[in-house]
């Protein structure tokens, strides 16, 4: 088992190297530092000197892969590839194009991101499982039918709509919570309540349908018929047998997204003015700050891969067929 997990972790590193190379090609060869400079300085007529100056200020004036003017290892390390890509593996993100330390920003912003993302995620999973179980328990009744209908309608509504209408209703109209912002202490709850609730509701329709399908798929299996043939009550069948089996894929898919929670939610954070990584990313995109985007791509992929490995681990722990095989 240990060797299996080790192998998956090594594979993860291999993926990360792939991501790194891919982003390097995308950001430095498809799109040259000159282009970046032109985009950032803006305006129609950009002089070559301005471009060079911009590049020197941000260290983009070095050669891409091989620095012929340096000797030995320096020839390889004093390059854009080493400074901007290889360094990421050591989690040294460098400075953003606007000159600030990306690593510092990330450390500052992870907290607020998690403050929104974690409760949203936890409550979301609970609400979804409950909704799906209800629909399955009341299978083939009007509750199931209207539940599914409602879920289909809910998943057809843009999340932007939920946010805008939610903000308007609870903040502008009812004045229950502040419209946006972030603060520590007890105020935190006031600021978080709305984004969390909206975050849960926005995903509820789609996820509840998905889980309902998983539960139903499971409850169509032979062993569920065996359980019924034992004379077990419908609750016992559902909770002891169906849920336990369906929980495996749910658990692992949950574990897979857990690390990504650190990245926060782009839209939520920017709508509700939460100073997390999501809004940081959006600001970077809007400011066309490629250094930050690159850092976030790397961080996101790394977290995704951590999720992959965690999934494998949780599978081996949770599923006796893998644990004992």
């Amino acid at each position, binding site marked *: 088992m240990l*060797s299996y997990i*080790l*192998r998956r972790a*090594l594979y993860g590193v291999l993926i990360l190297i792939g991501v790194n190379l891919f982003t390097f090609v995308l950001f430095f060869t498809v799109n040259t530092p000159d282009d970046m400079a032109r985009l950032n300085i803006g305006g129609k007529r950009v002089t070559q000197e301005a471009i060079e100056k911009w590049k020197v200020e941000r260290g983009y004036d070095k050669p891409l892969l091989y620095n012929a003017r340096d000797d030995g290892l320096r020839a390889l390390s004093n390059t854009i590839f080493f400074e901007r890509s290889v360094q990421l593996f050591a989690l040294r993100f460098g400075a953003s194009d606007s000159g600030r330390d990306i690593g510092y920003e990330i450390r500052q912003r992870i907290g607020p991101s998690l403050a929104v993302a974690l409760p949203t995620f936890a409550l979301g999973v609970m609400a979804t499982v409950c909704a799906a179980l209800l629909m399955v328990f009341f299978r*083939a009744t009007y509750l199931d039918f209207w539940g599914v209908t409602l879920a289909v309608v809910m998943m057809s509504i843009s999340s932007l709509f939920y946010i805008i209408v939610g903000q308007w209703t609870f903040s502008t109209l009812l004045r229950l919570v502040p419209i946006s912002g972030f603060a520590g202490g007890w105020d935190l709850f006031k600021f978080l309540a709305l984004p969390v609730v909206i975050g849960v509701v926005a995903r509820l329709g789609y996820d509840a349908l998905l889980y309902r399908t998983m539960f139903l798929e499971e409850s169509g*299996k*032979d*062993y569920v*018929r*065996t*359980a*019924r*043939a*034992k*004379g*077990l*009550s419908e609750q*016992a069948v559902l909770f*002891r*047998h169906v849920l*336990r*089996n369906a929980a*495996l894929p749910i658990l692992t898919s949950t574990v897979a997204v857990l690390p990504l929670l650190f990245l926060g939610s782009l839209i939520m954070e920017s709508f509700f003015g939460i100073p997390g990584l999501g809004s940081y990313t959006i600001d970077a995109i809007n400011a066309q700050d490629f250094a930050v985007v690159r850092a976030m791509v790397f961080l996101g992929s790394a977290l995704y891969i951590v999720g992959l490995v965690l999934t494998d681990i949780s599978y081996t722990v949770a*599923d*006796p*067929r893998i644990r*004992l*095989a």
Partner: protein
Amino acid sequence: MLAIENLDTVLDTDHGVVRAVEAMTLTIAQGETFALVGESGCGKSVTALSILRLLPDNGRVDAGAIRLDDVDLVQLPEARMRDVRGRRIGIIFQEPATSLNPVMKVGDQIYEVIVRHTPLRGAAARAKVIEWLVRVGIPEPQRRCDDFPFQMSGGQKQRIMIAIALAAEPDLVIADEPTTALDVTIQKQILELLRDLQAERRMALLLITHDLGIVAQMAHRVALMYAGQIVEVAPTPEFFARPLHPYARLLFGALPEAAKRGRPLAAIAGTVPPLDRVFTGCRLEERCPRAMAACRSTLPELRGVHADHQVRCLLFQAPFAAGAAAGGSPLSAADPEPKPMARGAPRAAEPASESPLLLVRDYRVHFPIRKGLLKRTVGYVKAVDGVSFAIPAGRTLALVGESGCGKTTIGKAMLQLLRTSARIDGTATLEGRRLDELRGAGLRLARRRMQIIFQDPFASLDPRMRVAEILEEGVASLRPEIAAASRQRHVAELLDKVGLRREALARYPHEFSGGQRQRLAIARALAVEPRLLVCDEPTSALDVSVQAQILNLLAELQRELGIAYLFITHNFAVVEYLADEIAVMRAGRIVEAGAAAKILSAPAEGYTRELLAAVPRLKRAA
């Protein structure tokens, strides 16, 4: 104890309402084993599920009553029905691999029943679980009760299933094809276990099966079903000695057995009528050799002929019975014995010295097991491990063995289908050419001389191609010299050969029944005029009556075209009927090989004897 009265069960399907079970009436007494036997789709499993009210979502009981000691289960509220399930009636399902909860310890799965239905709790219930594990023959029960189903063999899983069904000591146990998914030696053990338990606890056993051999061994009484109805009920000895219904007699005629060697089997023509239509007459009428004009328009009823023997046929029903009785027993002039098949004269005179068509020497097929960080090959699954045999032209070699013994692997390896996925050693020589050394054109040429028929007729034809395209594909690939026009003529002739109409060419596979599809598969293989046909369990997915059609066809083709068969099967009845030579396989090796007659009558090896003893046989007056 259990009495079913006029039960109608319907299933709502895409094609409309299917009356899966109609006018089902039967009684089962305490301590009795009652067998419900019939071909697939005849409604036997639906009956079982109706009794327990475990029908799928699209099924419902439409009419009738199911009385368990005078309580009508159909009318029982669901909550009280749950007290019946497990406590009064237990059930064993067909597929032990899927019928147990995969992530629950087997001990807990039995424990659950005991806690639900008996006052035992905690340690006492635990002790009971162990007791049951001992009783169903699980070794080391203290340890194994913490095992998960995947850690057990198929036979052990079925033993667990039996323990679950019996844990609350029900009065009636329904066994729905309990051994169909198991090997014949395991089948014997499971059946013995069931018989012992039944005798020991004086419970009633409703045994549902398609295997008349099992019925003969196990049942006190038997009901034969056809197209949703019971057509005959009788005590078992009576049923096998004097079957009355024409369908029962047809079925016996279609069974392959050693005594019928060299003669065609009495296949039942046609197919079972679809059950979504309304019947105005007998359901067998179209296929029945004794059909009368009245059969088309009169619904036959299940009538007692004499004590305990009921039959649903107009021949035994006034006024028709009177006329029939004038000529003695209604069926005394029944089915003429099929004429013996003329064995091809050239085959009998075949010189023994002639080199065999296919010669296999010390053949090994090893599948690599990859493990570790770099997926290195750490070992091999030795699916076939040093096998040698030879098939002369125009003869049949039967490769028999239990599942996992490597017989199918041999078949696929002969066709060179495993080259990329396995390590293959040894030699296979077809008509003097080393198969493993062939590449490109040579391999194509060899493939013309050798083809394969698969087990599952539903998986072996591409559902999205028309029959014409399916049949032409092989010809186009292996015999490109045949022009398109004559290819079509060639393909049409093939259909004649396998007894299908030419209209079939424009249709899609799903429009055909299982037997017809298997004919198509044979036609496809014949299209390239092979000398050797690898038949990989070609009839094990088919019902007895259809199996007889396919076996007849294969025999006829061999006689006409002189094709040799490598016949891979686990079914000894089929082997006894058609094999010239037999090779018995176990764990990748051939245990015993030789002429069929010798092996069947005087097996030298213990394993062969064990296998032969495990085959359930009809003890029927010849």
